[in-house]
């Protein structure tokens, strides 16, 4: 079975090459159907491989098995989390391709296959990153997913915002990628190896961590946290997500950002968790501080948005913060919880973007204020939008709720409160949008102080379909419905959560430490509390807008999101310094 691992990358790549080669002659329907079929095939492969992942599948590309413990080849690791991410990536790509099937704007002349081919390349990059067991190979696939994501984000080149957002995205993420590569080079210099496990062993052989290990850790983490959009590396994300085509947003917000968190988990676990890596306390401090700040800032900024896609983008940042908090506990419970949370979140967030895309294509706007009361006729979309919002809040039995409750117990103390509040605020913002846009509740929001209001409105966006939709195609409504069903099933299907937990324990402790994951009364109560809080916030915001309007003192925070790429680079530098300072005690005491 392990021989098939590279096919998770090769199949979508071959599909993309085929689509590009025949793109000039293929009719559009055929090209898009081929895209769907290939991504579905890859998803099937990942799902077939998953049950065989204990013990983890290990494949040396090119058949270069190590001789006497030392190899020259590239190792691929198909353990539960890796294959699980690959499956999630593939299913979401399939969903995104199905969503855009025949409805997405007319492709450029002679490039019928370009969009599905790029989506398949994106899928291949993400799958490759998920199963990489070699640090440099991980960088290569990381860059592939980056390059494709930049191109897809700027796909609508006629729009000024789209190209600006894509450029910012590309510059900040490339710089992060080069920081990652600097870190890899430092680790190679110390250990002379590239396989993650070998680097870890090499560091352990070198005694307690020193400045070199610290620098390697900080630089590698910088690259991954830029992708994961942790504060202060996060500025590119709202700009990119607000302008990317909806199917691309589904992938960016649903899995790509989470792959950054996954990379942190994977590389910490394999490279830096031994005695030669960084002490657990210091890693915990780094991830906890960054996670908490990310969650708080993401939630706050999410609340202040009126551009719906931007609002969802900030909610992704807030949830990334929550994921980092869970991973930062460095406990099996935290890992299990985050794994489930990521699965549930992918379904819910992608569904929200899908519904927003319908609004855009129907009304030519994604602005909460402009759309006030205009989408009343779209009942089905309204129900899905609201249900996804409740899922975001953590209403049992959504997968998000189960994952959240497990992680909440793992983090404990005041951080549990943060978890409840952050998920409530982000979900409250989405519910507020739902109440205004679909139900037309409350007074029509007044326009802020003229032209110089420091915000991005969602008006003037071009629909992504050829013309404004009169009737919403069935595929566009079926996809969010299925995604929501998936998110619901992740929490409701008995045994699923336990299977995820078993896969996680198999990957981290070879199955020695197994934690059982199930609904607890406390978890259910906390989920209900954050849901009620979200509903309450939305109700207040809609009926008495002035109570929760952005106060003047929030302006400095909003001004940080300036759209200026130089600012974002400056923050990236500050972020690496912050990482270094937070992890510094590891070297001073060690």
């Amino acid at each position, binding site marked *: 079975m392990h021989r098939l691992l590279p096919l998770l990358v090769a199949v979508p790549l071959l599909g993309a090459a085929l689509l590009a080669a025949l793109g000039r002659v293929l009719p559009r329907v055929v090209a898009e159907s081929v895209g769907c079929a290939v991504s579905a095939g890859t998803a099937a492969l990942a799902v077939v491989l998953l049950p065989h992942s204990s013990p983890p599948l290990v494949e040396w590309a090119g058949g270069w098995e190590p001789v006497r413990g030392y190899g020259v080849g590239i190792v691929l690791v198909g353990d539960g989390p890796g294959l699980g991410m690959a499956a999630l990536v593939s299913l979401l790509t399939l969903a995104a391709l199905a969503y855009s099937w025949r409805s997405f704007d007319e492709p450029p002349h002679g490039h019928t296959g370009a969009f599905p081919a790029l989506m398949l390349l994106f899928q291949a990059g993400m799958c490759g990153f998920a199963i990489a067991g070699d640090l*440099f190979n991980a960088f*290569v696939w990381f*860059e592939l997913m*980056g*390059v494709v994501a*930049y*191109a897809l984000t*700027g796909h609508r*080149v*006629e*729009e*000024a*915002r789209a*190209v*600006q*957002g*894509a*450029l*910012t995205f*590309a*510059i900040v993420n*490339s*710089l992060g*990628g*080069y920081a990652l*590569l*600097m870190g890899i*080079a*430092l680790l*190679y*210099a110390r250990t002379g190896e*590239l396989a993650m496990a070998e680097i870890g062993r090499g560091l352990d052989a070198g005694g307690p961590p020193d400045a070199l290990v610290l620098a390697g850790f900080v630089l590698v983490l910088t690259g991954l946290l830029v992708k994961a959009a942790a504060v202060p590396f996060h500025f590119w994300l*709202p*700009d990119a997500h*607000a*302008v990317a085509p909806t199917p691309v947003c589904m992938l960016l917000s649903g899995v790509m950002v989470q792959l950054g968190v996954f990379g942190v988990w994977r590389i910490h676990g394999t490279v830096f968790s031994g005695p030669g890596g960084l002490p657990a306390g210091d890693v915990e401090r780094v991830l906890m501080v960054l996670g908490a700040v990310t969650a708080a800032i993401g939630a706050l900024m999410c609340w*202040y*948005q009126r551009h719906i896609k931007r609002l969802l983008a900030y909610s992704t940042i807030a949830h990334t913060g929550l994921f980092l908090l869970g991973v930062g506990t460095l406990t099996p419970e935290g890992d299990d919880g985050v794994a489930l949370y990521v699965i549930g979140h992918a379904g819910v967030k992608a569904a929200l973007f899908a519904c927003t895309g319908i609004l855009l294509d129907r009304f030519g706007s994604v602005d909460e204020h402009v759309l006030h009361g205009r989408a009343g006729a779209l009942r089905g979309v309204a129900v899905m939008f609201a249900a996804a919002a409740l899922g975001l809040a953590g209403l049992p039995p959504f997968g998000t709720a189960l994952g959240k409750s497990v992680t909440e117990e793992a983090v404990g103390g005041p951080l549990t409160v943060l978890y409840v509040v952050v998920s409530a605020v982000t979900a409250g913002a989405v519910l507020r949008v739902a109440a205004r846009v679909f139900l037309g509740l409350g007074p029509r929001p007044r326009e802020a102080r003229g032209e110089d*209001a*420091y*915000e*991005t409105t969602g008006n003037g966006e071009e629909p992504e379909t050829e013309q404004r939709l009169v009737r919403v195609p069935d595929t566009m409504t079926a996809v969010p419905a299925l995604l929501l069903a998936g998110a619901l099933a992740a929490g409701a299907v008995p045994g699923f959560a336990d299977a995820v937990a078993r896969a996680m324990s198999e990957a981290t402790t070879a199955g020695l430490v197994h934690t059982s994951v199930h609904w607890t009364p406390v978890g259910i109560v906390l989920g209900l509390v954050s849901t009620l809080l979200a509903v309450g916030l939305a109700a207040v915001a809609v009926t008495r807008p002035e109570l929760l309007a952005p106060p003047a003192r929030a302006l400095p925070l*909003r*001004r940080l*999101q*300036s*759209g*200026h*790429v*130089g*600012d974002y*680079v*400056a923050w*990236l*530098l500050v972020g690496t310094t912050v990482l270094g300072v937070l992890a510094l005690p590891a070297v001073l005491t060690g």
Partner: protein
Amino acid sequence: MTAVLHVLPYLVAAWVFLAGAYGLATSRNLIHAVGCLSVCQAATYVLLLAVGYRDGATAPVFSDMAPGTRPVVDPVVQALALTDVVVGATVTALLLALVVQVAKRHGTVDPDELTELRG
């Protein structure tokens, strides 16, 4: 003095990376910014190749040299640097394509004048 020479190539790499990052942050022209990003990337080449160097060694190519007669530098970092070059070239091409479109849609390549996305 020799102690400095032993780490000088690494320090050059660090310097190049920081210089590129400074240029990127303070850039007033997006094409210049793309160039600065390439400078940052050049730092990774310098670091990789410096890490792989071996005193008195030659290129790891045995077409005109019997194996074992001379030490060779680390071939792995050279392969990594090659990959890195390709990544850099493609990213630069993509970035420049985006800059072309930014120039068309915004009528400027000064990042200070791009004010569409904020807040």
